[in-house]
């Protein structure tokens, strides 16, 4: 049981593109990122949502980081670079935060009743700020980028 990778959730993206027509709007300012410990084992093929296994336990919370996480803001879905779909957002930064053992971040659609999982990020190490500033600094390629013209 461990976090080993980052990825997009296949179930969600299939539901967006097939007859389900799941209404994920990546431009919304309401998506959230929740934190989990290394006790979970994400499956990007099988996992579906925040609040559903394995995201129904082992959530990391604490001072200034409540259950459910914080909003991911200033979101954009654009073409960058040419031929590539990029989802980007403002860096996450929370001051005076205290929690223990954050290894994984789950971005999910908080505005949808299903809390559908969008993307999971493996932090690579456990983070345990003690009244400190916890930051997730996205790469210039955004939160994720899909090359649609390989």
């Amino acid at each position, binding site marked *: 049981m461990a976090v080993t990778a*980052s990825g997009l959730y296949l179930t969600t993206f299939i539901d967006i593109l097939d007859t389900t027509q799941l209404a994920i709007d990546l*431009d919304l*300012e309401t998506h959230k990122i929740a934190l989990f410990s290394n006790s979970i084992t994400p499956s990007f093929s099988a996992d579906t949502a925040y609040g559903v296994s394995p995201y129904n336990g082992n959530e990391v919370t604490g001072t200034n980081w409540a259950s459910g996480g914080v909003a991911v803001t*200033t979101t*954009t*879905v*654009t*073409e*960058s670079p040419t031929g590539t779909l*990029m989802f*980007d957002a403002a860096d996450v930064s929370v001051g005076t*935060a205290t929690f223990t053992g954050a290894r994984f*971040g789950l971005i999910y659609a908080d505005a949808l009743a299903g809390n559908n999982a969008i993307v999971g*990020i493996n*932090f*690579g*190490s456990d*983070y*345990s*700020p*003690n*009244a*400190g*500033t*916890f*930051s*997730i*600094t*996205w*790469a*210039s*390629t*955004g*939160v994720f980028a899909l090359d649609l013209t390989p």
Partner: protein
Amino acid sequence: MPSTETLEKKFLEAKEQYAAGKLDGNKYQKAKSDFALARVEERKAEEADPNHPRGNGIASVTEEN
């Protein structure tokens, strides 16, 4: 060329107006694209700085206690 901060402000205003049905979709997409591209360029410059925590191809996570 407007600063990234200015473009961000214009984009967020456009986002609100578009959501309220008060802005044409093409104008919203233009404001979004202008800001998004400026943000990418700013972040590329930060990635080139070895002292900046900006991730290179991945997210970078830090804690400062």
